[in-house]
């Protein structure tokens, strides 16, 4: 733009170039605004700054404010669930579903009680435990 201005182009052409650049930029950004910005955060990444070198597929976090509890819960899970360490380390390939906050608790208990999760927790379906809950789970002897 500076170059165009330096060349002394007519102002109308400068104006039109600006307008078109803005419109095209908006067009490019349309997919991001409409499809990529979500209410939930699906963390499929390494959480190593929270829990050291463990590689965990965290699943769906409905409320990002719980992320600090996530770190504690995952720490407890990886420390206590030694027999399931492999399961926790293998990333799940299917995509996480969307969780509404009120369904969190239901899905969590469902995941714990359903037969297929009696020996492992599919992290995509499970909800992040808070630390006290995780300790209580351990005390009750539930498999995590």
């Amino acid at each position: 733009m500076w170059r165009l201005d330096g060349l002394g182009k007519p102002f109308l052409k400068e104006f039109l170039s600006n307008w078109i650049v803005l419109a095209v930029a908006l067009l490019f950004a349309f997919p991001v605004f409409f499809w990529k910005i979500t209410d939930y955060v699906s963390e499929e990444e390494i959480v190593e700054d929270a829990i050291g070198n463990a590689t965990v597929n965290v699943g769906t976090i409905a409320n990002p404010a719980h992320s600090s509890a996530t770190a504690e819960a995952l720490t407890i899970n990886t420390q206590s669930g030694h027999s399931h360490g492999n399961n926790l380390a293998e990333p799940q390939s299917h995509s996480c579903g969307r969780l509404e906050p009120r369904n969190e608790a239901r899905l969590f208990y469902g995941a714990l009680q359903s037969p297929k999760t009696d020996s492992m927790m599919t992290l995509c379906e499970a909800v992040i435990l808070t630390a006290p809950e995780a300790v209580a789970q351990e005390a009750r002897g539930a498999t995590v």
Partner: protein
Amino acid sequence: MAANAKTDRAAPVNDATYIIFIVLMSTGGFFAYLSCNSNEVVRSDGTWVDMPKEPTWKTEIIWLWYTFLTYPFVVLLFPMFFASNFFYTYQFNGINQAHFNTRTRALNNLLYWLCQIGGAFAFGYAIDSTHFRRSVKAKLAWIVLLVLTMAVWGGGLAWQLRVPDRQNNQSPHLPTMDWKSPGYRQAMVLYMAYGFYDAVWQSCVYW
């Protein structure tokens, strides 16, 4: 602006203007020293601020690369980043400098940046509101940007078609308007709208 209020020609600003700028900038820098360190800040609800580890330039580049790999759609936002500063040249050189005398330019700039402040405040509060979900706010933000782009720049087109243009000449001597000239009010409103629009666009991009 006050220092140049008597200059109703398109003349270079006087020395006092530059001195005032230097003094203002130094004062601003001094006030920056008075602000609190981040690790000592306590929010109104009593929580402390988490200080992240200070990154080195190497980690910054590595994380930038990592961001591209994990979130490739960020590249789609690059045209918005580019566009957010693209129109400065046109607005400052093509409108303000070309068509107005010194004191009117000063007034235009003042109003432009005041509207930017207002726009940033308004958009900031709107985008942080908890009445809507984040996805809804994103869609609304895009629609607002679209409407503003069409409205503000549509008005700009109307104005640009009315004023004299230059033809491949770096410094044409176009007739300059004063703030007392007829037709200044439309230009003033347009320029303020440009300022507001810039703030909204930039806030949206940073969000």
